[in-house]
């Protein structure tokens, strides 16, 4: 066990935890956040995605000790139900969910790509999403939502 401080969605947290614990378990168990979720624990599906330094990161395979002082942003840190982020609003506008369990991976991966490359082509979007899974297969609506968000930033 070790005292670890963690900045998540603008708030500083202190947790006493085994430093090898995956970041995901700290976020979901200790901080009781609902955005990042355990899907596979193998970095194969994306459900646990968070953003660190503008990059989409798989929190299920990242030890909490590796985060250090970098700020972590989860899906609920992006916007709120009262004030959703533009990409979240684009997903609402397109009705781009069924069960919705995969959304951290989909939304944060797309946001990280478009932050870095606002003019990303469809091929670049698909490449970025090629390790993100949605088993309800809401693919068509999700791609439409991402393009809607992209247009809204232009």
């Amino acid at each position, binding site marked *: 066990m070790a005292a670890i401080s963690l900045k998540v969605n603008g708030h500083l947290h202190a947790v006493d935890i085994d430093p090898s614990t995956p970041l995901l*378990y700290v976020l*979901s168990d200790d901080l009781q956040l609902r955005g990042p979720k355990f*899907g596979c624990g193998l970095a194969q599906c994306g459900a646990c995605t968070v953003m660190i330094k503008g990059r989409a990161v798989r929190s299920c395979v990242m030890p909490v000790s590796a985060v250090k002082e970098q700020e972590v942003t989860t*899906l*609920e840190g992006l916007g709120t139900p009262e004030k959703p982020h533009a990409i979240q609003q684009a997903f609402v506008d397109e009705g781009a969910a*069924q*069960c*919705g369990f995969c*959304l951290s991976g989909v939304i944060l991966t797309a946001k990280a790509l478009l932050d870095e490359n606002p003019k990303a082509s469809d091929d670049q979007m698909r490449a970025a*999403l090629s390790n993100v899974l949605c088993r309800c297969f809401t693919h068509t609506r999700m791609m439409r939502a991402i393009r809607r968000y992209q247009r809204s930033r232009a």
Partner: protein
Amino acid sequence: MNREISRRDFVKASGALVVCFSAASLIEPLIEPFALAQGPFDTHSSHVDPEKLDSWLAVASDGTVTAYTGKCDFGQGMYTVQTQLVAEELCVPIAKVKLIQCDTSVTPDQGTTSGSQSTPTNFNTRNLAQAAATAREALVTMAAQKLGVPADRLTIENGVVSSNSGGRVTYGELIGGKHFDLTVNASAKRRSPDQWKVLGKPLPSMDQLALMTGTFEFVHNVHAPGMVHGRVLRPPDTAATVANVDEKSVQHIPGLIKVVVRKNFVGVVAEKQWQAAQAAKDLMVEWKPGPGLPAQKDFYDSMRKQPSRDLMLVNSNDVENKLKSAAQVLKATYSHPYQAHGSIGSSCAVADVQADHATVWSATQSVYPTQHGVAALTSLPLDSVRVIFVRGSGCYGLNAADTVSYDAALLSQAVHRPVRVQLTRQEEFISENYGSACVIEQQVGLDANGAIEVWDCETWTASFGGRPGYDKPGNVITGMLAGFDPETITPRTAVEPTGELRNGNNAVPSYVVGCISGKCGGAGSIRSERVLTHAVKSPFFTGPLRSPVRLQNTFAHECFMDEICAYVKADPVAYRLQHLRETQIIDVVKAAAKAARWDARPSPKRGIARTATGIVTGRGISCVAYEGDNGYAALVAEVEVNQASGQVQATRFVVAHDCGPISNPEGLRNQIEGGVLQGMSRALGEEITWDDRKVTSTDWRTYHTLSLGTQVPAIDIVLMDRPAAQATGAGETAITLVAAAIGNAIFDATGARVREVPFIPDRVKAALFRRA
């Protein structure tokens, strides 16, 4: 004018003209964060009596309507559409409706939310819909009495009943906080689709904002006070048994609370999830292996040699003679693998089992059956077990949600604390009840004109375990490991069919008349018919997976139909229509062909070179009367086939879909779009694999689903609205058609027939190599 309202007038109120005025606010959804207040297909009696109106509905003094349903939302939209239903029948805005889903303490026992049965069960003239209609009529009667005005001079708007002479009274004033004390009235009049203001409208799913902002509570997010974490250890093969568990091997794990062993069930509990994971990894368990698995490469052949439980679904008793005298006989055999539900989130449950009561938070489709299962596993009285549904990751059928609920209950009982269990990805893949492997043998006889005269079909379905229902906890792996027997196959020969045609599994092709003792329930016109099914013992647990066995059978029927069309050089649409007689299926076939601008000609395309390696295109069609009468759809698929690599790319899907009156076209489209793409993933890549001892497809590298990076086809949907028909299911119809339509399009493009799912590149290349 104060007129005394007679008893007769009250009774007449049920036939009164009640107008619910249109109001835009009726469909304005709640914008505040969404919080979940939180086999048997019919509604069962329980302590929540489904005959009583108060079991389904309560009106508070502020006019809020709380509705209780035993059909829950997994992402297929049942929350939103049931809210619409209640709002519609009671003429209140949807923001005034609060829906409580699937909780054994408060909701009626509606068995399992599955089988495309939620809409038929709750949206026709029984259960939730009928309760809401009963409540509206009761409120009108009360208002008539209170206002002293006959019911036919009353209107309802947003939960307020007004008379044409200026009187008004709210629902809250009429009944607020009090019981109706009425039975559900079977003759209460439902509002008809031409009156609908809320139902039938494309209302976005009410959970969207919470989902998109990561604030929705899944069962994975439940935190019970004092909760600790469990993990389970599954046997390497289903039939392995525990020889020894070395508890000392995990004594070094900090936070370890207990190693739990019950017969062959093994688990650990620790303070933290990571500690439990470490303990599960380090715990030394010696397993006595089972007898091993049959070789996968010969599995389909071996299925046909097993002792089987047989069912004759139709038999005109002239099939052999007709085949002998036919101008031409065609035969083909199709096979379909085991597939996984593969929920994106591995299954999770939280249980709090104390000495005299238990609470389980579960994503099960079956809260009441799960209550029975947990009571059996914990030896607690049934009444002291409460199962509360909290949504999980999309399940698509019997994933591991039931079994992990048992896991959590067993571990919690052992430590007397609330325990959360989430399976690992690998455990999810070996813990769930797979969609069955099937083999289907087809044979038809053609007459001199090339029409089908006789259709003979024989199917083999591998089966073991299944839904636990109310009395078979052994039907999922945890129940079996803890000592309960799974349902297995008792061999039995078929008897001649009696009663009505049962086509729940779509084993009977759409093209036969389906006659039993002169009563014909089939969708087609072929009079000589025989359909014989065999259930054989599966080496793996099986259970319903979206369009269970219906998809497998439809793949075989619709591909075989296409083979017949090709043999007689007929257009696949025209030849299907020639053999169909039921209006609904004929209409969807025509509508899909029209929307797709179907190129009427025989398949395959002309001029296909046997040795070609380039990219070619083709189109195929398939159609189904789902479960015989629970929805109708046709699908045209357009594909590109890379003949060098064997890669198949679907470029366009056109779906025509008929589910009777459409309750929410937005939700329906989402289901169809997701259904056809899930069907495409299952058709092109998904297959459970195994070696001589164990399943080898246990993660997303070895079980092949299509990622979000996949280029998906354009999807065009034609919704047939039939307001006068009964409402049918809609979640499983479109997916049923995909493997067949793609297979037929591959044939059209290349002249090569692939009779085994999935259409992986090697299998397609082998078919290309064999093509004539």
